[in-house]
C-alpha cells in the first residue's frame, strides 16, 4: 500500500464517519458541524484525484459559504437543543427499496465505467484549462448561471427590504 492510498483511506474514513454522524446525531448544531468534516474529506479526495481547483472551490463554497449560512440559520433559531427533528412516521419498507435502487444504480455505474488509472502521473494544472473552457465552450451556461445568481440576489434583497415601506 503506498503513501497516497493511506491518505485516501484517511480522507474516505473522515468523510464517511462524519456523514454518518450528521444523520445520526440528535443535536442539530452537531449535525451542521459534522458536515464541515464531510466537506473537508471530500475536498481531500478531490486533491488526490488531481482536481485541485475543484477541491478549493469545494472548501470555499461549501465550508465558507453554505455551511456558515446553515450555522447562522440554526443558531439564530430559538430552540437549538430540544428541537424534535425526528418525524413521527417511519416508512422502513419504501425507504429500504428506494435506497436499494439508488445503491444498485451507483454500483452498476461504478462497475460499467472504464476508469482511467494513471498512478504515477503528476497532475497538470487545471485552472487555466477550466478558465478557457468556461469562456469558450461553456460560455452560455456560465452566463446563465451568473444571471440566475444575480436574480437570486436581487430577490433576496427585495424580500428583506419589503417591511420598511
Amino acid at each position, binding site marked *: 500500500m503506498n503513501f497516497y492510498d493511506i491518505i485516501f483511506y484517511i480522507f474516505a474514513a473522515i468523510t464517511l464517519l462524519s456523514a454518518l454522524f450528521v444523520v445520526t446525531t440528535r443535536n442539530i*448544531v452537531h449535525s451542521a458541524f459534522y458536515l464541515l468534516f464531510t466537506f473537508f474529506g471530500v475536498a481531500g479526495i478531490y486533491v488526490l484525484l488531481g482536481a485541485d*481547483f475543484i477541491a*478549493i472551490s469545494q472548501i470555499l463554497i461549501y465550508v465558507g459559504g453554505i455551511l*456558515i449560512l446553515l450555522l447562522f440559520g440554526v443558531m439564530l433559531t430559538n430552540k437549538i437543543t430540544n428541537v424534535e427533528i425526528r418525524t413521527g412516521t417511519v416508512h422502513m419498507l419504501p425507504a429500504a427499496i428506494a435506497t436499494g435502487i439508488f445503491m444498485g444504480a451507483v454500483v452498476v455505474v461504478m462497475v460499467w465505467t472504464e476508469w482511467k488509472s494513471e498512478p504515477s502521473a503528476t497532475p497538470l494544472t487545471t485552472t487555466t484549462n477550466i478558465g478557457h473552457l468556461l469562456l469558450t465552450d461553456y460560455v452560455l451556461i456560465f452566463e446563465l448561471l451568473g444571471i440566475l445568481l444575480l436574480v437570486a440576489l436581487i430577490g433576496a434583497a427585495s424580500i428583506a427590504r419589503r417591511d420598511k415601506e
Partner: protein
Amino acid sequence: MYQFLYDLIGNEILAGLLVAVVPLTIILVFALFGIWLERKVSAHMQDRLGPMRTGWHGWLQTVADLMKMLQKEDIIATDADKTLYNIAPVLVFTGSFAAYAVIPFSSKLLGSEVEIGLFYVIAISSLVVAGILMAGWSANNKYSLLGAMRAAAQIISYEIPTALIVLSMVMFTGTLSLDKISQMQTSSFWNWNIFGGAIFGLSKFLLIPFMIVGALIIFTSTLAEVNRVPFDIPEAESELVAGYFTEYCGMKWGMFMLAEYGNMFAVSAIISILFLGGYQSPIGYLGNSIGTQWLVPFEQGFWFIAKGLALVFVQMWLRWTLPRLRVDQLMTVCWKYLIPFAFINLIIIGIISLI
C-alpha cells in the same frame, strides 16, 4: 524545499512532515515575539515602558507567560458542549496554520508550489470562521455567542473587498501562484506591483494610483478579517468580556492567541506578496554581487520577514491609535465604501492592463 528533503531522507511522509514543521516554528516564534512587540508598542505609545523585568527590556515576558499558561488547570464550564468546545481551538489554529502551506518565504523555502495558492489562502481561511462559530456556540455563554456571530458576519463581509482586490491582482499578473507573483517583481522596489509592476511603459505610471488604493483597501479589509482594532467588535472587551473565547483558559486560550498572531502575519505576508514584492529584495542581493549564490535565499527570507513584520507593526500601531467602530459603522465601511471602490479599482486595473 520538499524535493530537497525528499532527496535527503527518501521518505515521503517524513519529508512532508518536516516541511510542515517550518511554518509551525515560524508561527510559534512569531507569536512569542509578536505578543511582546505588541505590549512594547502599546506601552511606548502610551508613554509607559511595558514589560521590563524578564530579560533585556522584558523580551522573555511571553515565554514566562507561556510557562504559566501551560500549568493552568483546564476548566470546562458545566453547561458547555464538551466535544465542540475542545475541537474549536484546534480548528481555528488549523485554519490559520494551513494558510502557511503555500506562502513562499524565499525562492527555496516554500511548502507547496501549487498553481492556485492565492485561491487556496482565501478558501482555507473560511475554516477559521467555522471554528469561531463553534467556539462561540459551544461555550454556552451569551457573550461568546454574540462575539462569534459578530466575528462571522464581519469576516464574511470583509472577504468580499479582499477577494475583489485579489482578483484585480490576478488579472494584472495573470497567475494565481504566489511564487510566480513574487518572481515577477524582481530586482528593484520600482518593479513592485504597488509601483505598477515590472513592465516599463505608460500603463505602469497609469497604474500606480490605483495600485496604492488597492493596497490600502486590502490592508483595511484584512485588518477586519483578523479582528484587529478598529474592527475588533467580536472581542470588544468593554462589551463582550473577550468575545468568542470568553470561556476558554490555559492552553486552549493560547491556541486562539496563536491563531490570531498567525493570521496577522499571514495576511501581512499576502499583502507583501501581492503589492510589495514578496521575498524580493528592494535593492538587489549581496549574494549576487559578491558571487555567493547560496546567500540569496537567506537574504530573500530576511526581506520577506522584514516586510511582514513591518506590516504587522502598522497593524499594532493602528490598534493603539484608533477607537473601535460600531457595528453599523463597520458594515457601512465595508458595503458602502470598500466594495464599490474595490469594484471600480478592479475595472480600471483591468482596462489599463489591456493597454
